[in-house]
């Protein structure tokens, strides 16, 4: 069993993921319950939400797997590097699941004001994936032994700051910048500014993941 699958197996035996999953469904259904629902604007909102929910899911896993269990699974996976790849794979898995749900739900239920085109879906998928990656890697950086309340406070502050900074900083504002670029993009198109914002967000996620890795190695 791979490290990511083992971690997932442990967390699924608990109820830790119930809260983020339930709240995510509630949030997405709630967002689309009231009209109007412009395609790009609505995707922009759920993209920022995926950053938070991916962080929550990753934090759930990191906190369910005890240090002893994590150490044993790391050895079984083949070492610290393999375990790290597993952690990143899990971030990727959560990002994909969240993206699929956030795109599929409104599209399947006809919740949008107009039918989303392929360009809309592509832009939405990109935005959701990179926002979730930023949230997930941020949760890795803020994993144990940091206290849960501290970690969640930092995650919320970072995401709120990212949204607040989206206007002055534009594409470099992380998830907020991606959401802004997406909501400003022409209908059914993947704009250059969205691609640039996604590239910046991917770089930020990479930097967060690298920092988390260095921190983990430093702690010993």
């Amino acid at each position: 069993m791979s490290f990511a699958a083992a971690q997932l197996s442990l967390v699924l035996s608990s109820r830790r993921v119930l809260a983020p999953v339930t709240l995510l469904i509630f949030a997405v259904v709630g967002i689309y319950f009231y009209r109007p629902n412009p395609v790009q604007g609505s995707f922009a909102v759920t993209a920022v939400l995926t950053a938070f929910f991916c962080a929550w899911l990753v934090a759930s896993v990191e906190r369910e797997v005890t240090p002893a269990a994590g150490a044993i699974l790391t050895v079984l996976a083949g070492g610290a590097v393999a375990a790290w790849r597993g952690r990143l794979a899990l971030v990727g898995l959560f990002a994909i699941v969240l993206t699929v749900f956030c795109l599929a739900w409104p599209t399947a239920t006809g919740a949008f004001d107009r039918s989303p085109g392929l360009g809309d879906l592509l832009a939405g998928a990109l935005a959701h994936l990179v926002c979730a990656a930023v949230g997930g890697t941020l949760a890795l950086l803020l994993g144990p032994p940091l206290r849960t309340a501290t970690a969640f406070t930092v995650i919320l502050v970072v995401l709120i700051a990212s949204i607040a900074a989206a206007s002055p900083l534009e594409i470099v504002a992380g998830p907020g910048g991606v959401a802004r670029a997406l909501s400003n993009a022409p209908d059914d198109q993947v704009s250059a500014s969205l691609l640039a914002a996604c590239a910046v967000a991917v770089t930020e996620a990479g930097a967060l993941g690298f920092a988390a890795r260095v921190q983990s190695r430093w702690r010993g």
Partner: protein
Amino acid sequence: MLLWADGVTVARGRTTLLEDFSLQLEAGELVHLRGANGCGKSSLMRVLAGVVEPRRGSVVRTGRCEYVPERVTLPESLPARRWLRVCGVGGAELPSELDRRCGALSNGQQQRVVLTAAMADGSLPASIHLLDEPWAGLDAVARDTLDANLTSVVAGGAAVMYTDHGHETGLVASRTLDLTEGGLEAAGSDALLRVELRRGGERTHVVISDRALAARLSDGWEIERVDRVQ
């Protein structure tokens, strides 16, 4: 050779616990790693097992590695049997009193669950078992069972390294690694020597200061091999 550590530096944060540590673990060896509290035994175990990478140097493992950390705690809601499946030994025999959620098990019982998983593949000849205080929390029967299992896997060609701060095992190690004199206590020494010592049938590898070596020699130890560390 099943495990080879070369010039390893073990550190936690800004604290360097061991520097330039080297070790070779052969098939059929039962090695006792000992030393004072805080000298770096558990950190060294973590590095040798691959839980964390060494700050410097390298560790090469050629066999399947099983690691049991100290103070084992498993996720409370996890069924013990699922832990065995996660560890890839779902078919291993689990006593009925352990077949519950881990939160309902005592520390000693959780230790037994982890040891059951770690020893399940003990019959594999080229396996490495790194056990950090594995007897802690076990009752007398479980301790004896573990001793018997370890003797069996070593006889089968596996290599075992353990720590036993509480002197809870009756096993006689084929080699003892003493970190006390080579770890933190010797950190300020000007002249450190890596020495292989022998006294009767007992052998030990230590990184040791000149003065500590003199004390050892007056205690009946003989030098097998000596290298200068710094």
